[in-house]
Each structure stands twice: as structure tokens, then as C-alpha cells.
């Protein structure tokens, strides 16, 4: 009876030390998952619609293409869906310099390793008249932002 109690106490003693040790390892591991990120927001402003000429314009800072067809605008991501390099617009298609993926003007895949089409980002005009892109929000391939008058919403 006495031996039994000793065994239980020993189990609790060793067990709690071990549990504390494992918990500390877990806590140290948790520290590697940042709680605060100093990253730019996924929703950001570009230039005014009228600042873009007709055709494909690269926005280097945001790694995307603004495409203007008269008064209709849409925005396609320049980030390759394969492994994240910047695709380049070459008059008739997008080409990737890292692994050779090729995309049609609407971002769908012609050939190469890219598993899916380039992303289309939701685009609006901000109240103060700038194009505003939400890179966290994909839209369908027929999305167009049509702007009446002189480029003001």
C-alpha cells in the first residue's frame, strides 16, 4: 500500500518536471510564429486611372500589371503561380524567367510548369480618385472596372 503511494507520488513528481520541460520547448517554438507583421497591407492605392496608357503597364512596386482597354481596367498579378518569380509582359504573352512558364494575355497558362492562371485582383476606384487594388481578393476572368467620364468614378 505504502509502495503504491510512493509510486504515484514519484510519477507525479517526475511527470510534472517533464511536462514543464516540454511546455517550455513548445513555448520556445511558438515564439517563431510572429504575432505582429510589419508588412504592407494587401489593399493599396495605385495611380489615377488616367495616368495609365492603353495596354499593359507594370507596377514594379506592387508586382502587378494594370491593363487598360479604353475605359475598362483590370489588374493581373505579375507573380508566377509556379514558384513566385515576376512574369514579364512581352506584347503577346507573359513569360517567366525562372522556369519558363508562359501565359496568355488574360493570365491563363499556355505552357510550362505553372499549375494555374495568374491571379486577377479586385479593383475599385477610391473616393479620392485612385485605382485601388485588393491583392487578397481574387476576381473572375471577366472582371472589368469601367470608368465613365474623365476617369472619375
Amino acid at each position, binding site marked *: 500500500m505504502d509502495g503504491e503511494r510512493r509510486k504515484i507520488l514519484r510519477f507525479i513528481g517526475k511527470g510534472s518536471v517533464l511536462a514543464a520541460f516540454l511546455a517550455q520547448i513548445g513555448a520556445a517554438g511558438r515564439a517563431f510564429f510572429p504575432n505582429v507583421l510589419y508588412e504592407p497591407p494587401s489593399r493599396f492605392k495605385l495611380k489615377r486611372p488616367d495616368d495609365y496608357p492603353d495596354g499593359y503597364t507594370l507596377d514594379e512596386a506592387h508586382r502587378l500589371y494594370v491593363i487598360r482597354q479604353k475605359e475598362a481596367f483590370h489588374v493581373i498579378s505579375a507573380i508566377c503561380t509556379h514558384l513566385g518569380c515576376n512574369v514579364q509582359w512581352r506584347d503577346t504573352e507573359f513569360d517567366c*524567367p525562372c522556369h519558363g512558364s508562359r501565359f496568355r494575355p488574360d493570365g491563363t497558362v499556355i505552357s510550362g510548369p505553372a*499549375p494555374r492562371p495568374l491571379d486577377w485582383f479586385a479593383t475599385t476606384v477610391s473616393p479620392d480618385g485612385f485605382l485601388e487594388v485588393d491583392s487578397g481578393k481574387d476576381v473572375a476572368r471577366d472582371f472589368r472596372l469601367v470608368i465613365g467620364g474623365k476617369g472619375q468614378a
Partner: protein
Amino acid sequence: MGDKIKALWRKTSWAWSPESERESSEAIVKNFWLHWFPAKVARASMDWNYSFWLGTASASLLLILTITGVMLMFFYVPSTERAYGSIKDLQYAVSFGRLLRNQHRWAAEGMVAVVYIHMARVFFTGAYRGPRAVNWVVGVVLFLATLFLSFTGYLLPWDQLAFWAITVGTSIAKQAPFVGPTIQFILLGGHEIGQQTLLRFYVLHVFFLPVLAWVLFAYHMWRVRKDGGLAAVERVRNERVMAPKATPKTKSYSLFGLTPGTSVQVMSSTGLEESDQVFSSPNMSRRIALVFLVVFNITLLAAILFNAPLEGLANPSVTPNPAKAPWYFVWLQELVASTTVRFGGYTVSGALLGGILLPGFLLAVLTLWPWLDRSPLRAGGRWLAPERKRQNLTFAIATLAIIVLIMVGVYLRGPYWRIYWPGQPRPETPRLY
């Protein structure tokens, strides 16, 4: 005075140039640097043409890399704003800084090659069978550590190569089933490449991976002794038609004979006849010193003749065209570029197939090979034993395939990763980086 200096020199160096058999034996017991060697080693394992001393060369490179690496740490600042500048300082402002960085870079690339060739040597001599299987696995992990050290190393200058290698590398990690996005998040320290990313790879490069490499190296050496020396010993034993002797009890580790198994012997553990053995000091100690000096001088010569590459400052807006990985990863770049498969409406990305599944499969086969291998045990310790023809061919073909992929990637790929045959004109691409 002169006599005193001479006596002091003799006192510190006698273990390396023993003048009697007794001194040879005592050298091992009394010298800190030599105490981890057996007093005697098999003559066969000293043969230059058996092992080519590639393991010693690998260890020499690890030592050179550790020393030059620690020295580089005095000048390098792991900050996205200052890293590139500190490399430029090493190149142009620090006396011999360029030489130091060059030697670190060429020793690193050399180590990838030498460790692989060492592994090939062990394979082609069938030296991973029986108890040596464990050391083979340790060796595979050491090879991986070498690759990860190289990868984390060329990220640190924060040039274009670094930025796009992190982009591609962590995007491949993201493709891992289930845990991929978490791995990418923890490697980057966020969703985008930034200061946290550089700091994480820096600490991996200067602390965790080197410590792993050194600890595994120590274990690798310890296992070589526990397993009875190089596999060449087995060959000699077979030639002499000797049954392996029970290893003698020794004074140092099993005084009362309490420990079962093979102890780390002060005397020979090879169980060979006297005539097949030589004293470690000076036969092995001097060869090791010679190999180290040769390896050191080759890396130094390379550092004097060739500059380590440094691309433009990291620029997330512009991907170099083409963006090529260093030669030892180009075959993986070829794999991820060409293994996307589509059936029906379903697509498996090359990033998963060529970046994770295929390399993972190769690694699994490589690791488990000693247990998949059914060649006769006595074929071990000999180069290209006819009994191991199938095994050796398999390894040779796999190696050749990797070399072909590297050649294609390095020499034939041009802008937009298209194939350009030699002589075929390559289009001019703007070099904005």
C-alpha cells in the same frame, strides 16, 4: 636559448614525428589531437587509391569554412539594409576581405562536390554494408547539412541571387502537403521576404547547421572506429581467409571487462595481423595533415584566381532573366521546371512533384539503400566489385542523369528559361538588376 627553443619544439611536436614504436604508441595516448585515433590502423586503409582521402578532404573543407566563416562574421551585418553593403565592404574596403570571402565561397562549393564524390566512393566500394549502414545514413544527413549550409550561405549577401533563391526555395516548401504554408511562414518569419527572413537564415547558417555538421562529423568518425575502420579492412581479412578475431580487452575503456561490445580501442580494433597494420602516428596523422594542406592551398589558389559571384542588390521588382540557381541546385530547378503534369482538369505542380516528391523519393532510396542492397557482403571494400554491378550501375546512371540536368541548366538555358543550343543566338534581355 636556441637549445631551449629546440627542446620546447620537440616537446610539442614529438607526437607528430615519433622516433620509435614506443613513441608512436604513446603519441596516441598522450596527445590531445591524436587521442581519438587508434594506435594502429590497417595498412590497406592508408592507400591513396582506395579512399582518395575524400572524407578527410571534406572535413578539411568544413574546418576551412568554419574558420573563414567566423572571420566573415566580424564584418557581415545580417540586416536587409546593410548586408549587401557589408559584402561590398569586404570586397573593396577590408584588407584581404575579398580573399576571405572568395575562399569561403569556393570551399563551400568544393565541399558540396567533395562530399558527393566521397559518397560515390563509399558506394562504389560497397563500404556501407553490415554495421556500416548506420554511418551511411549519418553520411547522407551530413550531405544534406552541406547542401542546406550552401543554400543558407548564398542567401546572406542579400543580392538578386539571394532574394530569388529564397522566393523559389520557400515557395517549394509551401507546396509540401498539409504543413507547407506553415513551413513557409516560419522560414520567412511572415508572409513576405524581409528582415525576419534574413535573420532566420543567418542564425541557421552560422549556428544551427554548423553545429549539426560538426556533431554529426564527430559521430561519423566515432562510428568509423566502432565499425572496425574502413571497409578495406574487411577485404584484407577476406584475402587472408581469417575469421574476425575477438577484439582484445583494453585498459582505457573496459578495465574490468564490464562493457559488452567493441570498445573504443587504444590498441587496434581491426583484428588484423601485425604485418597488415601500421602505426597511426606518423602514418595517418601526417597524411591527414598533408590532405588538409593540399585542400587548403587549392581553395586559397581558387580564391586568388577567381572572385566569388555577387549580383545586384536584392530587388523584388525585377527577376533576373534567366534566374539560375548555383550549379549544384540547377538539376532541381530543371526538375521543378519540367515535372508539372496535367490530366483532365487536374494539375500537379512541378513544385510539388519535382521540388518535393521526386527529391524526397531519391533521398529515401539513398538513405535506405544499405537495406535494399542484396549484394554479397564480401564484395565490400573493393572498387567496382563485379558482384555489385547492378548496384554500381544504378548509382552511376542516377549521378549521370543529375550531371546531364546540371549541364542543360547551366549551359543551354537562356532568357525565359528556354533552351538555346551552342551557337544559337540568344535574345538580348535588359539587365535592370
